[in-house]
């Protein structure tokens, strides 16, 4: 089993570190461009949410990303010490509305749900832990 840990701070500029790490990991693990970009999207949406809504203070916080790959399954574990937030309880946006009624927003978590096959949320030791898997066989 291959594993990679990425630890970033709670600033949007750190998303570039995630994108670059995923790019080199995709080479290493031979992931297709499509899978790599989809995993990047999932992480960007979740990390952006954590940075925007997760903290009440202005302190530096760390966000931990653990990626692993085994038997054609990629697992992502995302851990943050922000406010308790279970994205699985977040209402699905209505994507069938007309232009006038479509809301600008709410799509991020929708992408996560559609792209990943399994998502498990837990709150442990004041941390949000999101464990997600995607079968890429």
């Amino acid at each position, binding site marked *: 089993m291959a594993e990679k840990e990425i630890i970033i701070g709670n600033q949007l500029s750190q998303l570039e570190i995630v994108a670059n790490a995923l790019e080199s990991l995709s080479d290493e693990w031979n992931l297709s461009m499509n899978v790599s970009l989809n995993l990047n999207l999932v992480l*960007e949406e979740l990390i952006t949410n954590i940075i925007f809504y997760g903290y009440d203070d202005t302190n530096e916080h760390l966000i931990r990303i653990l990626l692993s790959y085994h038997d054609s399954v990629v697992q992502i574990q995302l851990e943050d010490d922000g406010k308790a937030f279970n994205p699985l309880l977040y209402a699905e946006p209505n994507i069938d509305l007309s232009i006038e009624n479509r809301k600008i927003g709410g799509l991020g978590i929708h992408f996560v749900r559609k792209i990943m096959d399994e998502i498990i949320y837990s709150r442990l030791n004041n941390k949000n832990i999101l464990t997600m898997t995607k079968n890429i066989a």
Partner: protein
Amino acid sequence: MEIKKSKIGSFWVINLTGRLDTSNYGELEKSLIDLIDSGEKELAVDCSGLVYISSSGLRVFLMALKKITQSAGKFHLCCLQNNIHEIFEIAGFTSIFKIFNTVDEALK
């Protein structure tokens, strides 16, 4: 991301290259709003060089579409790579945007 604008016939063509994400969506938002606010009503975004988009980027497209629709103009997209098209489908955007296969088709 690189943004290039050119006028072809009655359309402004906005050519995007690279990644459109949380870190840079503001640049595209400003480019589009500048054009729309100055009265331009026919825009076509050429996405042939766009390799990645997140919800921040999609929000900019939706904002522009809403604004242009209000003034009875046209906001066309063309040349989406497969990865990008898939994201548009998941978002339900393929049914609300006019998406064309070539720049020529998008300029009508």
